[in-house]
Protein backbone atom coordinates (compact mmCIF):
# COMPACT_ATOMS: atom_id res chain seq x y z
CA UNK A 1 0.00 0.00 0.00
CA UNK A 2 2.92 2.32 0.74
CA UNK A 3 4.23 1.45 -2.69
CA UNK A 4 0.85 2.21 -4.22
CA UNK A 5 0.80 5.58 -2.52
CA UNK A 6 4.28 6.42 -3.75
CA UNK A 7 3.39 5.43 -7.29
CA UNK A 8 0.31 7.58 -7.00
CA UNK A 9 2.29 10.59 -5.86
CA UNK A 10 4.84 10.15 -8.65
CA UNK A 11 2.03 9.86 -11.14
CA UNK A 12 0.48 13.04 -9.83
CA UNK A 13 3.76 14.87 -9.99
CA UNK A 14 4.12 13.84 -13.62
CA UNK A 15 0.58 14.89 -14.37
CA UNK A 16 0.80 18.16 -12.48
CA UNK A 17 1.77 20.57 -15.30
CA UNK A 18 -0.95 19.28 -17.62
CA UNK A 19 -3.51 19.19 -14.85
CA UNK A 20 -2.99 22.75 -13.82
CA UNK A 21 -6.28 23.81 -15.31
CA UNK A 22 -8.22 21.26 -13.26
CA UNK A 23 -9.51 22.35 -9.87
CA UNK A 24 -9.67 18.73 -8.74
CA UNK A 25 -8.14 15.48 -10.00
CA UNK A 26 -8.76 12.17 -8.29
CA UNK A 27 -8.06 8.49 -9.01
CA UNK A 28 -8.57 5.08 -7.35
CA UNK A 29 -5.84 2.58 -6.52
CA UNK A 30 -7.87 -0.21 -8.14
CA UNK A 31 -10.72 -0.46 -10.61
CA UNK A 32 -11.56 -4.02 -9.69
CA UNK A 33 -11.57 -5.79 -6.33
CA UNK A 34 -11.49 -9.58 -6.75
CA UNK A 35 -13.30 -11.55 -4.06
CA UNK A 36 -11.70 -14.99 -4.02
CA UNK A 37 -12.36 -17.92 -1.67
CA UNK A 38 -9.62 -16.55 0.58
CA UNK A 39 -10.86 -12.92 0.57
CA UNK A 40 -10.66 -11.35 4.02
CA UNK A 41 -11.26 -7.74 3.09
CA UNK A 42 -9.17 -5.11 1.35
CA UNK A 43 -8.77 -1.38 1.35
CA UNK A 44 -9.10 0.97 -1.56
CA UNK A 45 -7.10 4.15 -1.89
CA UNK A 46 -8.64 7.34 -3.26
CA UNK A 47 -6.03 9.96 -4.09
CA UNK A 48 -5.73 13.15 -6.02
CA UNK A 49 -4.62 16.73 -6.15
CA UNK A 50 -6.19 20.17 -6.22
CA UNK A 51 -5.23 23.47 -7.77
CA UNK A 52 -5.90 25.60 -4.70
CA UNK A 53 -4.46 24.73 -1.28
CA UNK A 54 -6.50 22.32 0.83
CA UNK A 55 -6.51 21.64 4.52
CA UNK A 56 -6.90 24.02 7.47
CA UNK A 57 -7.75 27.50 6.18
CA UNK A 58 -8.16 26.28 2.59
CA UNK A 59 -10.54 24.09 0.61
CA UNK A 60 -11.94 20.83 1.95
CA UNK A 61 -12.25 17.36 0.44
CA UNK A 62 -15.18 14.99 0.81
CA UNK A 63 -15.10 11.38 -0.46
CA UNK A 64 -18.20 9.17 -0.73
CA UNK A 65 -18.28 5.51 -1.84
CA UNK A 66 -21.56 3.72 -2.50
CA UNK A 67 -22.16 0.04 -3.22
CA UNK A 68 -24.98 -1.60 -5.17
CA UNK A 69 -28.45 -1.24 -3.62
CA UNK A 70 -30.83 -4.02 -2.61
CA UNK A 71 -34.06 -4.29 -0.61
CA UNK A 72 -33.59 -5.19 3.07
CA UNK A 73 -35.97 -6.20 5.84
CA UNK A 74 -35.48 -5.11 9.43
CA UNK A 75 -37.28 -7.22 12.03
CA UNK A 76 -37.87 -6.63 15.68
CA UNK A 77 -38.13 -9.51 18.13
CA UNK A 78 -41.16 -9.53 20.40
CA UNK A 79 -42.09 -11.79 23.24
CA UNK A 80 -44.86 -14.27 22.41
CA UNK A 81 -45.83 -16.84 25.06
CA UNK A 82 -42.41 -16.55 26.66
CA UNK A 83 -40.55 -16.99 23.36
CA UNK A 84 -38.72 -14.28 21.45
CA UNK A 85 -40.06 -14.36 17.92
CA UNK A 86 -39.70 -11.98 15.00
CA UNK A 87 -42.53 -9.49 15.20
CA UNK A 88 -43.09 -6.27 13.26
CA UNK A 89 -40.86 -5.63 10.28
CA UNK A 90 -39.99 -2.72 8.03
CA UNK A 91 -38.85 -3.08 4.44
CA UNK A 92 -36.32 -0.64 3.01
CA UNK A 93 -36.12 -0.60 -0.76
CA UNK A 94 -32.91 0.98 -2.02
CA UNK A 95 -30.42 0.16 0.69
CA UNK A 96 -26.79 0.57 -0.37
CA UNK A 97 -24.88 -2.60 0.41
CA UNK A 98 -21.87 -0.43 1.16
CA UNK A 99 -21.53 3.24 2.07
CA UNK A 100 -18.55 5.16 3.28
CA UNK A 101 -18.10 8.89 3.67
CA UNK A 102 -14.76 10.41 4.54
CA UNK A 103 -13.78 14.03 4.66
CA UNK A 104 -11.09 16.41 5.74
CA UNK A 105 -13.82 17.45 8.16
CA UNK A 106 -17.25 16.00 8.99
CA UNK A 107 -19.74 16.51 6.17
CA UNK A 108 -22.22 18.42 8.33
CA UNK A 109 -19.56 21.01 9.10
CA UNK A 110 -18.62 21.45 5.46
CA UNK A 111 -21.94 21.75 3.69
CA UNK A 112 -25.39 23.23 4.33
CA UNK A 113 -28.03 20.76 5.47
CA UNK A 114 -30.07 21.08 2.25
CA UNK A 115 -27.10 20.15 0.02
CA UNK A 116 -26.20 17.24 2.26
CA UNK A 117 -29.72 15.82 2.18
CA UNK A 118 -30.06 16.34 -1.55
CA UNK A 119 -26.83 14.48 -2.40
CA UNK A 120 -27.06 11.87 0.37
CA UNK A 121 -23.85 12.95 2.09
CA UNK A 122 -23.78 11.35 5.53
CA UNK A 123 -25.52 8.33 7.05
CA UNK A 124 -28.36 10.53 8.33
CA UNK A 125 -28.87 11.85 4.80
CA UNK A 126 -29.31 8.45 3.11
CA UNK A 127 -32.65 8.31 1.33
CA UNK A 128 -34.15 5.22 3.03
CA UNK A 129 -37.85 4.87 2.35
CA UNK A 130 -39.49 2.24 4.56
CA UNK A 131 -42.69 0.30 4.11
CA UNK A 132 -44.32 -1.81 6.81
CA UNK A 133 -43.78 -1.02 10.46
CA UNK A 134 -43.26 2.70 11.13
CA UNK A 135 -41.10 4.32 13.70
CA UNK A 136 -37.56 5.67 13.69
CA UNK A 137 -36.29 2.64 15.64
CA UNK A 138 -36.17 0.45 12.51
CA UNK A 139 -34.11 2.97 10.57
CA UNK A 140 -31.82 3.41 13.55
CA UNK A 141 -31.42 -0.37 13.87
CA UNK A 142 -30.58 -0.70 10.17
CA UNK A 143 -27.95 1.99 10.58
CA UNK A 144 -26.53 0.45 13.72
CA UNK A 145 -26.30 -3.09 12.32
CA UNK A 146 -24.76 -1.95 9.05
CA UNK A 147 -22.21 0.12 10.94
CA UNK A 148 -21.36 -2.79 13.20
CA UNK A 149 -20.78 -4.96 10.14
CA UNK A 150 -18.37 -2.33 8.80
CA UNK A 151 -20.51 -1.92 5.71
CA UNK A 152 -21.53 1.65 6.48
CA UNK A 153 -18.82 4.02 7.65
CA UNK A 154 -18.89 7.63 8.62
CA UNK A 155 -15.62 8.94 9.97
CA UNK A 156 -14.40 12.48 9.80
CA UNK A 157 -10.76 13.37 9.32
CA UNK A 158 -9.81 10.26 7.39
CA UNK A 159 -8.67 12.25 4.37
CA UNK A 160 -4.95 12.85 4.66
CA UNK A 161 -3.46 15.96 3.13
CA UNK A 162 0.16 16.33 2.04
CA UNK A 163 1.72 19.60 1.00
CA UNK A 164 -1.64 21.39 0.83
CA UNK A 165 -2.20 20.05 -2.73
CA UNK A 166 -2.26 16.25 -2.47
CA UNK A 167 -4.87 14.24 -0.66
CA UNK A 168 -5.49 10.54 -0.07
CA UNK A 169 -8.19 8.56 1.70
CA UNK A 170 -8.37 4.89 2.46
CA UNK A 171 -11.71 3.09 2.21
CA UNK A 172 -11.69 -0.23 4.08
CA UNK A 173 -13.79 -2.91 2.41
CA UNK A 174 -14.73 -5.71 4.84
CA UNK A 175 -14.90 -9.36 3.77
CA UNK A 176 -18.67 -9.14 3.48
CA UNK A 177 -18.81 -6.42 0.77
CA UNK A 178 -21.51 -7.19 -1.76
CA UNK A 179 -20.44 -7.75 -5.35
CA UNK A 180 -21.40 -5.21 -7.98
CA UNK A 181 -20.66 -1.76 -9.31
CA UNK A 182 -19.50 0.88 -6.83
CA UNK A 183 -19.41 4.62 -7.33
CA UNK A 184 -16.97 7.01 -5.69
CA UNK A 185 -17.62 10.76 -5.61
CA UNK A 186 -14.91 13.22 -4.65
CA UNK A 187 -16.07 16.73 -3.78
CA UNK A 188 -14.01 19.88 -3.46
CA UNK A 189 -15.71 22.23 -1.01
CA UNK A 190 -14.97 25.94 -0.68
CA UNK A 191 -16.80 28.12 1.86
CA UNK A 192 -19.77 25.70 2.19
CA UNK A 193 -20.19 25.26 -1.56
CA UNK A 194 -19.24 22.37 -3.82
CA UNK A 195 -16.88 23.85 -6.43
CA UNK A 196 -15.66 20.69 -8.19
CA UNK A 197 -16.64 17.02 -8.36
CA UNK A 198 -14.94 13.87 -9.66
CA UNK A 199 -17.05 10.78 -10.35
CA UNK A 200 -15.10 7.54 -10.20
CA UNK A 201 -16.12 3.90 -10.02
CA UNK A 202 -14.84 0.44 -9.29
CA UNK A 203 -16.20 -3.06 -9.33
CA UNK A 204 -16.28 -5.76 -6.67
CA UNK A 205 -16.33 -9.09 -8.46
CA UNK A 206 -16.42 -12.61 -7.15
CA UNK A 207 -13.76 -14.70 -8.87
CA UNK A 208 -12.45 -18.22 -8.73
CA UNK A 209 -14.21 -21.34 -7.54
CA UNK A 210 -16.58 -19.57 -5.15
CA UNK A 211 -17.88 -17.35 -7.94
CA UNK A 212 -18.35 -20.29 -10.28
CA UNK A 213 -20.26 -22.24 -7.62
CA UNK A 214 -22.46 -19.25 -6.88
CA UNK A 215 -23.12 -18.62 -10.58
CA UNK A 216 -24.08 -22.25 -11.12
CA UNK A 217 -26.35 -22.29 -8.05
CA UNK A 218 -28.14 -19.19 -9.31
CA UNK A 219 -28.11 -19.90 -13.02
CA UNK A 220 -28.86 -23.62 -13.09
CA UNK A 221 -30.26 -24.57 -9.66
CA UNK A 222 -31.54 -27.98 -10.82
CA UNK A 223 -28.13 -28.98 -12.17
CA UNK A 224 -26.47 -27.60 -9.04
CA UNK A 225 -28.88 -29.55 -6.81
CA UNK A 226 -28.14 -32.78 -8.66
CA UNK A 227 -24.43 -32.05 -8.42
CA UNK A 228 -24.71 -31.53 -4.65
CA UNK A 229 -26.49 -34.89 -4.29
CA UNK A 230 -23.93 -36.75 -6.41
CA UNK A 231 -20.88 -35.04 -4.87
CA UNK A 232 -22.01 -35.62 -1.28
CA UNK A 233 -22.81 -39.28 -1.98
CA UNK A 234 -19.49 -39.77 -3.75
CA UNK A 235 -17.52 -38.00 -1.02
CA UNK A 236 -19.22 -40.03 1.72
CA UNK A 237 -18.61 -43.31 -0.09
CA UNK A 238 -15.00 -42.50 -1.06
CA UNK A 239 -14.22 -41.23 2.41
CA UNK A 240 -15.46 -44.37 4.11
CA UNK A 241 -13.42 -46.54 1.72
CA UNK A 242 -10.25 -44.50 2.33
CA UNK A 243 -10.57 -44.30 6.10
CA UNK A 244 -11.53 -47.96 6.53
CA UNK A 245 -8.40 -49.09 4.70
CA UNK A 246 -6.25 -46.55 6.51
Amino acid at each position, binding site marked *: MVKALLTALLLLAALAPGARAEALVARLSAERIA*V*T*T*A*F*TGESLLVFGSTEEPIGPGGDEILVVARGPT*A*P*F*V*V*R*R*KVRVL*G*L*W*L*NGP*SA*RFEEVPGFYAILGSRAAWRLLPEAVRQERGLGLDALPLAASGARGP*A*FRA*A*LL*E*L*KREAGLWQEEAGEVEIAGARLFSARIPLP*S*TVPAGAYSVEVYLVRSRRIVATEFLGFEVA*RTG*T*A*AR*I*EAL*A*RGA*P*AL*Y*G*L*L*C*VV*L*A*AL*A*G*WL*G*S*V*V*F*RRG
Partner: protein
Amino acid sequence: MQIYLPIAEMSVDALLLVGLGFLVGWLSGLFGVGGGFLLTPLLILIGVPPAVAVASGANQTLGASVSGLIAQARRANVDWPMGAVLVAGGLAGSLAGVQLFALLRRLGQLDAAVALSYVVILGVVGALMVMESLRALLRRRRALPARMHQHGWAHGLPFKMRFRKSRLYMSALPPLAIGFGIGVLSAIMGVGGGFMLVPAMIYLLGMPTAVVIGTSLLHIVCVTAAVTFLQAVQLGAVDIVLTLLLLLGGVAGAQLGVAMGGRLRGEETRALLGLLVLAVAALLLWNLIAPPEEPFSVERAPW
Protein backbone atom coordinates in the same frame (compact mmCIF):
# COMPACT_ATOMS: atom_id res chain seq x y z
CA MET B 1 -7.43 -21.09 7.27
CA GLN B 2 -10.30 -18.84 6.29
CA ILE B 3 -12.49 -20.03 3.47
CA TYR B 4 -15.37 -18.24 1.79
CA LEU B 5 -18.64 -20.18 1.63
CA PRO B 6 -20.26 -19.09 -1.65
CA ILE B 7 -23.90 -19.74 -0.70
CA ALA B 8 -23.77 -18.90 3.00
CA GLU B 9 -21.88 -15.75 1.89
CA MET B 10 -19.53 -15.77 4.84
CA SER B 11 -15.91 -16.45 5.67
CA VAL B 12 -15.23 -19.22 8.17
CA ASP B 13 -12.27 -21.21 9.37
CA ALA B 14 -12.13 -24.37 7.24
CA LEU B 15 -10.49 -26.28 10.10
CA LEU B 16 -13.39 -25.37 12.40
CA LEU B 17 -15.82 -26.92 9.94
CA VAL B 18 -13.71 -30.06 9.46
CA GLY B 19 -13.40 -30.31 13.26
CA LEU B 20 -17.13 -29.87 13.71
CA GLY B 21 -17.75 -32.57 11.10
CA PHE B 22 -15.27 -34.84 12.89
CA LEU B 23 -16.92 -34.32 16.28
CA VAL B 24 -20.40 -34.99 14.98
CA GLY B 25 -19.19 -37.93 12.89
CA TRP B 26 -17.44 -39.39 15.92
CA LEU B 27 -20.58 -39.09 18.05
CA SER B 28 -22.70 -40.57 15.31
CA GLY B 29 -20.31 -43.51 14.92
CA LEU B 30 -20.20 -43.98 18.68
CA PHE B 31 -23.96 -43.96 19.14
CA GLY B 32 -25.02 -45.29 15.77
CA VAL B 33 -27.15 -42.30 14.82
CA GLY B 34 -26.97 -39.92 11.88
CA GLY B 35 -25.81 -36.87 13.82
CA GLY B 36 -27.69 -34.38 11.69
CA PHE B 37 -29.67 -33.27 14.74
CA LEU B 38 -26.40 -32.10 16.31
CA LEU B 39 -24.83 -30.68 13.20
CA THR B 40 -27.55 -28.26 12.11
CA PRO B 41 -27.86 -26.51 15.52
CA LEU B 42 -24.06 -26.29 15.79
CA LEU B 43 -23.85 -24.66 12.36
CA ILE B 44 -26.50 -22.14 13.38
CA LEU B 45 -24.57 -21.43 16.58
CA ILE B 46 -21.38 -20.57 14.63
CA GLY B 47 -23.34 -18.10 12.52
CA VAL B 48 -24.34 -20.00 9.39
CA PRO B 49 -27.75 -18.70 8.24
CA PRO B 50 -30.42 -21.22 9.40
CA ALA B 51 -31.68 -21.89 5.86
CA VAL B 52 -28.17 -22.80 4.70
CA ALA B 53 -27.49 -24.81 7.87
CA VAL B 54 -30.63 -26.90 7.35
CA ALA B 55 -30.14 -27.45 3.61
CA SER B 56 -26.43 -28.26 3.90
CA GLY B 57 -27.11 -30.40 6.97
CA ALA B 58 -29.44 -32.56 4.89
CA ASN B 59 -26.82 -32.74 2.16
CA GLN B 60 -24.15 -33.77 4.66
CA THR B 61 -26.43 -36.45 6.15
CA LEU B 62 -26.86 -37.86 2.65
CA GLY B 63 -23.11 -38.22 2.25
CA ALA B 64 -22.66 -39.66 5.73
CA SER B 65 -25.35 -42.33 5.19
CA VAL B 66 -24.43 -43.62 1.74
CA SER B 67 -21.64 -45.97 2.78
CA GLY B 68 -23.81 -47.42 5.56
CA LEU B 69 -26.58 -48.14 3.07
CA ILE B 70 -24.16 -49.85 0.69
CA ALA B 71 -22.82 -52.03 3.51
CA GLN B 72 -26.32 -52.97 4.72
CA ALA B 73 -27.53 -53.67 1.17
CA ARG B 74 -24.56 -55.96 0.58
CA ARG B 75 -25.53 -57.94 3.68
CA ALA B 76 -29.13 -58.11 2.39
CA ASN B 77 -30.42 -56.19 5.41
CA VAL B 78 -32.70 -53.91 3.42
CA ASP B 79 -36.42 -54.58 3.01
CA TRP B 80 -36.77 -52.98 -0.44
CA PRO B 81 -40.61 -53.03 -0.76
CA MET B 82 -41.01 -51.58 2.73
CA GLY B 83 -38.28 -49.06 1.92
CA ALA B 84 -40.07 -48.09 -1.28
CA VAL B 85 -43.32 -47.41 0.59
CA LEU B 86 -41.51 -45.38 3.27
CA VAL B 87 -39.57 -43.43 0.63
CA ALA B 88 -42.75 -42.69 -1.33
CA GLY B 89 -44.18 -41.11 1.81
CA GLY B 90 -40.84 -39.45 2.52
CA LEU B 91 -40.62 -37.82 -0.90
CA ALA B 92 -44.11 -36.36 -0.55
CA GLY B 93 -43.20 -35.25 2.98
CA SER B 94 -39.98 -33.54 1.89
CA LEU B 95 -41.83 -31.74 -0.89
CA ALA B 96 -44.42 -30.49 1.63
CA GLY B 97 -41.68 -29.69 4.14
CA VAL B 98 -39.72 -27.53 1.71
CA GLN B 99 -42.92 -25.58 0.85
CA LEU B 100 -43.51 -25.00 4.56
CA PHE B 101 -39.85 -23.97 4.92
CA ALA B 102 -40.20 -21.42 2.10
CA LEU B 103 -43.41 -20.05 3.62
CA LEU B 104 -41.79 -19.66 7.05
CA ARG B 105 -38.86 -17.86 5.46
CA ARG B 106 -41.20 -15.40 3.73
CA LEU B 107 -42.91 -14.75 7.05
CA GLY B 108 -39.57 -14.17 8.76
CA GLN B 109 -40.26 -16.95 11.26
CA LEU B 110 -37.85 -19.54 9.89
CA ASP B 111 -35.17 -19.22 12.58
CA ALA B 112 -37.64 -19.55 15.43
CA ALA B 113 -39.54 -22.38 13.72
CA VAL B 114 -36.36 -24.39 13.14
CA ALA B 115 -35.24 -23.84 16.73
CA LEU B 116 -38.66 -24.62 18.15
CA SER B 117 -39.06 -27.85 16.17
CA TYR B 118 -35.63 -28.88 17.42
CA VAL B 119 -36.60 -28.13 21.02
CA VAL B 120 -39.83 -30.12 20.81
CA ILE B 121 -38.54 -33.13 18.87
CA LEU B 122 -35.20 -33.40 20.67
CA GLY B 123 -36.83 -32.79 24.06
CA VAL B 124 -39.35 -35.58 23.57
CA VAL B 125 -36.93 -38.04 21.99
CA GLY B 126 -34.19 -37.30 24.55
CA ALA B 127 -36.55 -37.71 27.49
CA LEU B 128 -37.90 -40.99 26.10
CA MET B 129 -34.37 -42.30 25.52
CA VAL B 130 -33.22 -41.47 29.02
CA MET B 131 -36.37 -42.94 30.60
CA GLU B 132 -36.14 -46.08 28.48
CA SER B 133 -32.54 -46.75 29.31
CA LEU B 134 -32.98 -45.96 33.00
CA ARG B 135 -35.86 -48.41 33.18
CA ALA B 136 -33.77 -50.99 31.34
CA LEU B 137 -30.76 -50.38 33.61
CA LEU B 138 -32.91 -50.95 36.69
CA ARG B 139 -33.99 -54.41 35.51
CA ARG B 140 -30.92 -55.34 33.54
CA ARG B 141 -30.74 -58.89 34.81
CA ARG B 142 -34.35 -59.66 34.11
CA ALA B 143 -35.39 -61.07 30.78
CA LEU B 144 -36.59 -58.53 28.27
CA PRO B 145 -40.36 -58.49 27.83
CA ALA B 146 -41.55 -59.83 24.51
CA ARG B 147 -41.66 -57.10 21.91
CA MET B 148 -45.13 -55.76 21.29
CA HIS B 149 -46.16 -56.11 17.69
CA GLN B 150 -48.89 -53.60 17.31
CA HIS B 151 -51.03 -55.62 15.04
CA GLY B 152 -54.29 -54.42 16.47
CA TRP B 153 -54.82 -50.87 15.32
CA ALA B 154 -53.42 -51.12 11.82
CA HIS B 155 -55.38 -54.23 10.83
CA GLY B 156 -58.51 -52.49 9.71
CA LEU B 157 -56.69 -50.29 7.19
CA PRO B 158 -56.89 -50.96 3.43
CA PHE B 159 -54.06 -51.38 0.85
CA LYS B 160 -52.55 -54.38 2.51
CA MET B 161 -49.13 -55.43 1.27
CA ARG B 162 -46.86 -58.34 1.98
CA PHE B 163 -43.37 -57.39 3.21
CA ARG B 164 -41.51 -60.68 3.03
CA LYS B 165 -38.23 -59.57 4.52
CA SER B 166 -39.94 -57.99 7.54
CA ARG B 167 -42.34 -60.94 7.82
CA LEU B 168 -45.27 -58.51 7.85
CA TYR B 169 -48.60 -58.42 6.08
CA MET B 170 -49.98 -54.98 6.71
CA SER B 171 -51.56 -51.90 5.21
CA ALA B 172 -49.21 -49.60 3.29
CA LEU B 173 -50.75 -46.57 5.00
CA PRO B 174 -48.81 -46.58 8.32
CA PRO B 175 -45.37 -46.72 6.67
CA LEU B 176 -46.49 -44.10 4.15
CA ALA B 177 -47.58 -41.81 6.99
CA ILE B 178 -44.39 -42.41 8.96
CA GLY B 179 -42.29 -41.75 5.86
CA PHE B 180 -44.22 -38.55 5.20
CA GLY B 181 -43.76 -37.26 8.75
CA ILE B 182 -40.03 -37.95 8.74
CA GLY B 183 -39.79 -36.33 5.29
CA VAL B 184 -41.35 -33.11 6.59
CA LEU B 185 -38.99 -33.08 9.59
CA SER B 186 -36.03 -33.78 7.34
CA ALA B 187 -36.84 -30.76 5.18
CA ILE B 188 -37.36 -28.39 8.11
CA MET B 189 -34.59 -29.60 10.41
CA GLY B 190 -31.96 -30.79 7.96
CA VAL B 191 -31.71 -34.22 9.55
CA GLY B 192 -32.08 -37.76 8.27
CA GLY B 193 -34.51 -38.48 11.07
CA GLY B 194 -33.06 -41.90 11.93
CA PHE B 195 -33.44 -41.23 15.65
CA MET B 196 -37.23 -41.13 15.16
CA LEU B 197 -37.54 -43.47 12.21
CA VAL B 198 -35.84 -46.42 13.87
CA PRO B 199 -38.10 -46.49 16.96
CA ALA B 200 -41.16 -45.95 14.74
CA MET B 201 -40.19 -48.91 12.56
CA ILE B 202 -39.62 -51.17 15.56
CA TYR B 203 -42.51 -50.17 17.79
CA LEU B 204 -45.17 -48.89 15.36
CA LEU B 205 -44.58 -51.13 12.34
CA GLY B 206 -43.21 -54.10 14.25
CA MET B 207 -40.28 -54.66 11.89
CA PRO B 208 -37.52 -57.06 12.96
CA THR B 209 -34.43 -55.18 14.16
CA ALA B 210 -32.16 -56.94 11.64
CA VAL B 211 -33.67 -55.05 8.70
CA VAL B 212 -34.51 -51.79 10.50
CA ILE B 213 -31.10 -50.13 10.16
CA GLY B 214 -30.67 -50.95 6.47
CA THR B 215 -34.22 -49.96 5.56
CA SER B 216 -34.07 -46.72 7.56
CA LEU B 217 -30.77 -45.85 5.81
CA LEU B 218 -32.49 -46.34 2.45
CA HIS B 219 -35.17 -43.88 3.55
CA ILE B 220 -32.60 -41.40 4.89
CA VAL B 221 -30.46 -41.45 1.74
CA CYS B 222 -33.45 -41.02 -0.60
CA VAL B 223 -35.18 -38.33 1.46
CA THR B 224 -32.05 -36.26 2.17
CA ALA B 225 -31.24 -36.44 -1.55
CA ALA B 226 -34.73 -35.11 -2.31
CA VAL B 227 -34.44 -32.40 0.34
CA THR B 228 -31.02 -31.35 -0.99
CA PHE B 229 -32.36 -31.10 -4.53
CA LEU B 230 -35.55 -29.23 -3.55
CA GLN B 231 -33.72 -26.82 -1.23
CA ALA B 232 -31.18 -26.09 -3.97
CA VAL B 233 -33.86 -25.47 -6.60
CA GLN B 234 -36.44 -23.62 -4.54
CA LEU B 235 -34.38 -21.70 -2.00
CA GLY B 236 -30.82 -21.87 -3.30
CA ALA B 237 -29.67 -22.70 0.20
CA VAL B 238 -27.32 -25.68 -0.28
CA ASP B 239 -23.66 -24.80 0.18
CA ILE B 240 -21.60 -27.57 -1.38
CA VAL B 241 -18.32 -26.20 0.01
CA LEU B 242 -19.76 -26.34 3.53
CA THR B 243 -21.12 -29.85 2.91
CA LEU B 244 -17.84 -31.25 1.62
CA LEU B 245 -15.78 -29.76 4.46
CA LEU B 246 -18.17 -31.25 7.02
CA LEU B 247 -18.09 -34.62 5.25
CA LEU B 248 -14.30 -34.62 5.20
CA GLY B 249 -14.20 -34.52 9.00
CA GLY B 250 -17.39 -36.51 9.42
CA VAL B 251 -16.32 -39.63 7.58
CA ALA B 252 -13.05 -39.86 9.51
CA GLY B 253 -14.81 -39.20 12.82
CA ALA B 254 -17.45 -41.83 12.16
CA GLN B 255 -14.84 -44.57 11.63
CA LEU B 256 -13.17 -43.66 14.93
CA GLY B 257 -16.52 -43.54 16.69
CA VAL B 258 -17.56 -46.96 15.40
CA ALA B 259 -14.25 -48.41 16.59
CA MET B 260 -14.74 -46.94 20.08
CA GLY B 261 -18.46 -47.69 20.22
CA GLY B 262 -17.87 -51.40 20.69
CA ARG B 263 -16.60 -50.76 24.21
CA LEU B 264 -19.79 -49.06 25.43
CA ARG B 265 -22.71 -51.09 26.74
CA GLY B 266 -26.06 -50.63 25.04
CA GLU B 267 -28.03 -49.08 27.88
CA GLU B 268 -25.32 -46.66 29.00
CA THR B 269 -24.86 -45.62 25.39
CA ARG B 270 -28.53 -44.88 25.04
CA ALA B 271 -28.67 -42.92 28.31
CA LEU B 272 -25.64 -40.85 27.26
CA LEU B 273 -27.10 -40.17 23.86
CA GLY B 274 -30.40 -39.21 25.48
CA LEU B 275 -28.62 -36.73 27.76
CA LEU B 276 -26.74 -35.26 24.82
CA VAL B 277 -29.97 -34.83 22.90
CA LEU B 278 -31.59 -33.16 25.93
CA ALA B 279 -28.63 -30.81 26.33
CA VAL B 280 -28.91 -29.63 22.72
CA ALA B 281 -32.66 -29.09 23.20
CA ALA B 282 -32.08 -27.12 26.42
CA LEU B 283 -29.46 -24.89 24.74
CA LEU B 284 -31.80 -24.09 21.86
CA LEU B 285 -34.70 -23.46 24.23
CA TRP B 286 -32.55 -21.06 26.22
CA ASN B 287 -31.74 -19.12 23.04
CA LEU B 288 -35.47 -18.79 22.42
CA ILE B 289 -36.54 -17.66 25.88
CA ALA B 290 -33.56 -15.51 26.91
CA PRO B 291 -34.07 -11.81 26.13
CA PRO B 292 -32.09 -11.14 22.94
CA GLU B 293 -29.05 -8.87 23.17
CA GLU B 294 -30.02 -7.26 19.90
CA PRO B 295 -33.80 -7.09 19.38
CA PHE B 296 -33.43 -6.10 15.73
CA SER B 297 -32.19 -8.16 12.83
CA VAL B 298 -31.47 -7.19 9.24
CA GLU B 299 -31.56 -9.45 6.23
CA ARG B 300 -31.69 -9.13 2.47
CA ALA B 301 -35.36 -9.19 1.50
CA PRO B 302 -35.98 -12.74 0.27
CA TRP B 303 -38.53 -11.74 -2.36
